[in-house]
């Protein structure tokens, strides 16, 4: 086929690339479904560094990955009653507002500074979370009248504890602010907003970890959908790359939801902290231009 050759002749084994992307995406899907992340933190470095694809296609693929994780995982979590719809929809107001303001100020702000600031914030959260690693359930939390008014409460059946767990959110305003930051981050950097959502729900609003990751999973897709159209019309979402990513992530996320329900909240935290630490280091390094 003459012309239009944007191939990668230097690729050692092109035949395996499709399968390679599929496998990496499945891993990203499992981890994303477990931890409430979109998998962008895995997809972007994996596709650029391991597979050697151009960064714009990797970022386009990561948007697809976020939406696939979100929809694939949320389909199970919403039906299973683990994701809290009210909390998700109400806090989406904060994240989408954050994403839009991010789009407004993008270009007027030094991205490298942002990487450092957000990276340090994540590093601090990782340390803060270390102290909470052993907490299985939040127990009684301080009463927040706003949480009562918005009916930020619920219950789910915990397959590990073999009982229904009831919970109520606290600190709605600080949680909402953190969600706004999560939105800002996805609007400005396009990465890592799932981490902030889980932190807002788990550390600030004190929801059970499973409810936090499941609710975050539902939310990240909505935030990502806002920018997906732009990436698509720019041609960054390449069918041959995005297709295996979508299928791999969907399969991984589907499998991940089954695993997640059988894990302890403490196990999820133990998985979450190292991911948080790695991403914070990654961001700080990128900010420093290393």
């Amino acid at each position, binding site marked *: 086929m003459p012309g239009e050759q944007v*191939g990668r*002749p230097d690729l050692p084994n092109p035949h395996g690339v499709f399968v390679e992307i599929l496998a990496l995406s499945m891993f990203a899907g499992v981890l994303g479904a477990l931890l409430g992340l979109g998998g962008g933190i895995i997809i972007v470095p994996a596709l650029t560094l391991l597979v050697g694809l151009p960064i714009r296609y990797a970022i386009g693929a990561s948007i697809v990955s976020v939406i696939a994780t979100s*929809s694939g995982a949320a389909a199970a979590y919403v039906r299973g009653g683990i994701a809290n719809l009210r909390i998700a*929809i109400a806090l989406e107001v904060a994240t989408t507002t954050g994403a839009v303001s991010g789009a407004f100020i993008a270009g007027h702000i030094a991205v490298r500074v942002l990487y450092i600031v957000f990276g340090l914030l994540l590093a601090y959260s990782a340390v803060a979370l270390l102290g909470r690693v052993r907490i299985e359930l939040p127990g009684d939390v301080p009463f927040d009248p706003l949480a009562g008014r918005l009916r930020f409460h619920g219950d789910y*059946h915990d397959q590990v504890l073999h009982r229904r767990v009831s919970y109520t959110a606290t600190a709605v305003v600080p949680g909402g602010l953190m969600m706004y930051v999560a939105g800002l981050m996805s609007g400005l950097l396009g990465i890592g907003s799932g981490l902030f959502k889980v932190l807002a729900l788990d550390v600030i609003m004190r929801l059970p970890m499973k409810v936090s990751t499941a609710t975050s999973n539902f939310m990240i897709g909505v935030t990502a959908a806002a920018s997906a159209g732009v990436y698509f019309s720019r041609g960054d*979402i390449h*069918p041959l790359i995005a297709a295996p990513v979508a299928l791999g992530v969907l399969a991984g996320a589907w499998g991940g939801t089954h695993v997640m329900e059988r894990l302890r909240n403490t196990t999820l935290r133990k998985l979450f902290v190292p991911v948080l630490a790695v991403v914070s280091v990654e961001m700080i390094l990128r900010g420093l231009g290393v």
Partner: protein
Amino acid sequence: MDLESSSLGQAVPRAEPAGGVDATARVLGTVLRAGVLISAAIILLGIILFVHRRGIGVNLFAPGGLPSGGAEDPSTLGELLNALNSNSHVPAAVTDIGLLTLMITPVLSVIVSMVSFARARDWTYVAFAAVVLCMLALGSVLERI
């Protein structure tokens, strides 16, 4: 409904109490699952067409296998329709339709929640969902400028 009945572990259907959120959750779960399954099926079809077009053992990522922009990688609705009509770029167009179906699924979930909250006369949450939809619309307009 009670705990004993679900001690077997997974996949034990539980009777849920009537109420706005549970009804919403059921509808929403169905919409999300449908969006995921339909988009996955279309994407899979697109890949099969790619392989069919270029033969078994195809090297999708060889030079020329990774088209960028233009009719081979439709990125607007017009290009998508042209690609479907022109026959030669059908695999990419079909795959893109699958990807677009996946991409609108979260937006659809917000719309469905809004309708569901409206039926439960939960106006605060109808307003929340409406704001989210406005922000999504605003965001897509902003980034195009």
